[in-house]
């Protein structure tokens, strides 16, 4: 329970209208998009200036209050679920795009800027910010950086990490720490930027972020190829890469997902197809057209039953509408949807898809799989009802099994959703006891009272 005088102190810092303590308001910050238990915080603050953000962090530390930073609360691993009675710092009051520099191709933003709004603003200037997580219409840059968010364009363009040139953040005492710069090259100091990307709010609180921008591709072309087996689709992916073609996106949908999308959107998809690939190439027009023709040939050679190449923007939209509908189509089938993101080296995709099918059968569950075939990041999506305890127990076992199989194939627990609460207990399995120890010591040195989003990523040791 926070004392009245402490609440007054917070209100002095952020303003009366930006601090909430009502049980009803607190309840609305007790969850994020992950399927984990809700935890009610003790106070919500929404700073509207960088200075008040720093002061709020310091106030939390001075009083030993656990602090969880929250952007749009779209986290899929529970990273924005607060601690009981803790403080939630909402960043959507800090949403200024400070600068878009066309000459030097970078943007400076506050942490609460919405990803899609930044993408649109830079595109209006003929520039491109490629990371496009599924939640980009609402997710914030601060959250994307804290989670090292990915998206559909990972294969060619990389993930959020690849675009963070520098950032400033408040340490636990409210001191402003700066790292990186507005230059392409920067060799001064520790690479604290690298440390902070993906730190899930456990080491500091972002104040400002410098992002790299690139030229907007002049031309795009999309196509859809249908296969009678997952193996053939995977062979086609391998053949495309082997021929040194790097599509901007190379997406996969399994039969269950295809059927769900077809039921949902009546797009005319072949419901008996085992797998479907959605490919988009971008770049210089001549190169794109040439590569597109080669991809089409490769898919045919690898046994594609049918290929649809989008000839104009409308058709391109229709191709991507099918992919965008995947999550919705699956979500409408059962009350609870568990979206996993175990990732394997791309050549192991057929093995991983087969493993997921085995797991679905063994635990008697419905799992639809789609995802980013180009970068090995699949989204096995378990459809269930959390109110059914027997089935839920099987879901938990299935998740364990998916992780085990992904690790056995040299993969990772999470391609893009982060570790958070949902995967923290598995982290040692992927890494080592030494890794957890090293991380614990780092955390203790930088956050001695353990107030920065404690319990996320790993449980501190010794």
């Amino acid at each position, binding site marked *: 329970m926070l004392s009245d005088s402490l609440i007054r102190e917070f209100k002095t810092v952020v303003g009366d209208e930006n601090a909430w303590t009502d049980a*009803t*308001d607190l*309840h609305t910050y007790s969850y994020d998009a992950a399927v984990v238990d809700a935890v009610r915080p003790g106070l919500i603050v929404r700073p509207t200036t960088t200075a008040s953000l720093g002061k709020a962090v310091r106030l939390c530390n001075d009083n030993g209050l656990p602090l969880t930073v929250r952007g749009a609360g779209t986290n899929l691993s529970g990273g924005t679920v607060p601690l009981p009675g803790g403080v939630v710092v*909402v960043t*959507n009051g800090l949403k200024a795009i400070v600068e878009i520099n066309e000459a030097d191709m970078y943007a400076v933003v506050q942490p609460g800027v*919405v990803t899609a709004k930044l993408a649109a603003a830079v595109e209006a200037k003929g520039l491109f910010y490629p990371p496009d997580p599924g939640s980009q219409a609402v997710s914030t840059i601060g959250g994307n950086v804290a989670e090292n968010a990915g998206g559909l364009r990972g294969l060619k363009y990389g993930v959020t990490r690849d675009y963070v040139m520098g950032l400033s953040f408040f340490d636990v005492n409210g001191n402003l720490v700066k790292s990186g710069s507005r230059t392409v090259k920067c060799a001064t100091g520790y690479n604290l930027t690298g440390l902070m990307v993906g730190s899930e709010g456990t080491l500091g609180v972002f104040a400002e972020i410098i992002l790299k921008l690139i030229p907007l591709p002049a031309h795009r072309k999309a196509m859809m190829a249908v296969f009678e087996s997952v193996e053939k689709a995977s062979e086609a992916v391998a053949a495309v890469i082997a021929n040194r073609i790097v599509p901007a996106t190379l997406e996969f949908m399994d039969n269950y997902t295809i059927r769900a999308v077809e039921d949902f959107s009546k797009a005319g998809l072949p419901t008996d197809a085992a797998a479907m690939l959605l490919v988009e190439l971008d770049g210089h027009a001549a190169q794109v057209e040439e590569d597109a023709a080669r991809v089409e040939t490769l898919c045919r050679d690898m046994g594609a039953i049918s290929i649809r190449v989008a000839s104009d923007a409308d058709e391109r939209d229709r191709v991507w509408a099918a992919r965008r509908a995947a999550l*919705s189509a699956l979500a*409408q089938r059962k009350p609870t949807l568990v979206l996993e993101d175990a990732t394997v080296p791309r050549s192991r995709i057929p093995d991983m898809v087969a493993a997921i099918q085995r797991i679905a059968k063994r635990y008697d569950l419905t799992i639809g799989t789609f995802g980013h075939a180009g970068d090995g990041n699949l989204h096995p999506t378990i459809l269930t009802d959390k109110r059914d305890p027997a089935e839920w127990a099987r879901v938990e076992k299935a998740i364990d099994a998916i992780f085990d199989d992904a690790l056995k194939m040299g993969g990772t627990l999470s391609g893009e959703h982060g570790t958070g609460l949902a995967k923290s207990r598995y982290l040692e399995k992927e890494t080592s006891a030494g890794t957890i120890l090293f991380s614990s010591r780092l955390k203790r040195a930088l956050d001695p009272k353990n107030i920065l989003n404690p319990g996320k990523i790993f449980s501190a040791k010794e």
Partner: protein
Amino acid sequence: MASMEALARLMRELEDQLIVCMRCGMCQSVCPVFDQTGREADVARGKLALLSGLMEQMFDDPEGVYERLSRCLLCGSCAANCPSGVRVQEIFLKARAILSGYMGLPPAKRLILRGMLAKPAVFDRLTEWGARFQKIFTRPVNDIVGTSCARVMSPLIQDRHFRTLAKVPFHRQVPALDRPAGKSGLKVALFTGCLIDKMFPNIAHSTIRVLEHLGVGIFLPDNQGCCGIPALSSGDLDTFNRLLAHNLARFAAGDFDVLVTACATCTSTIHEVWPTMADERHRDAAVKLAERTMDINQFLVRDAGLEPSAAATDGTHTVTYHDPCHLKKSLKVFVEPRTVIQAARGCRLKEMAQPDWCCGMGGSFNLQYYDLSKGIGEKKADQIKATGADTLATGCPACMIQISDMLSRAGSKIAVRHPVELLAEGLDDHST
């Protein structure tokens, strides 16, 4: 807490619908209220979490939840954009009914809803008195937009620039009609709607003028009631069902193909809300009438064969169109009103940015949360002004009230009209 358990039991009725929300948060990108405040309790995900919380007895504050539920325009932007297909408006309307049944309606709302709205004849008389007295208390501020403001400071009116009540409401000018189908072979029933009847009778006259021109027969029963949405959005199921029964009886007498209204909110209420919220006794009749209810623009284009005029490109008026939420998001009607504008002589259509972003009216939302409503409306007004259009058209009288207020406060000289009014004026100017 026995009473909390009772409430939780009532909320269980919504469980199967509440569980559909997977907390993905995509509603944040389209919610006009959240856009203003950034508060989770203002967006659908937060409100749905609160209802689930009440159901699971995680906290005890039904008044607080009701208050937060009221901070919603019921615009349906969230539902239209929801990956999981959560029936947000239906849940919120039912939840408001459960909560206000549990706590009782506030006395002022009871007086307005049960004492006035539920009795169409009383409501009509009261607003007629209002029309006679309003000149004493208000003064015109903007002739082109057609707004007035308070002569003296009033806590209810504040600094609104509002559209005044019509001197003579439509139902006094044209109490009833029953005309057979003409050359079109079609006959419609016309549901007038309170705002058109009492503030915008010209929209109803224009509708009749256009229907006549196209040879469409009209059944207009007298003593029509309110569609019931103001009652329902306050959680007053009782008044809603009384109005529903009244209206069903009024229209049962007629013989017509389609029921049309020129009010987006009335259309979406009849089409979407009547079937889901009607009590057992009236459900079948409500479903049947809902199935043949249509927005006037949609009827004109789809059934009556209205087409864009050839002269549409060199119009003397530049018209920009605002999509009422209840047409675009509830009924997916957005092409036809634009076609109607393009069919109106002398009108050239020019799109604004985000034409389907809510204007912030939301009926009683505007009365309860004027500052929020104004913030949303000012954004809309800026986007309208940026087009350089001389006329704003929209298919909903409630949006017209809000946009008139916002434009007038900004000193704008942009006229606010219904597409059907533009169409009718074109007929009067150029043909007979």
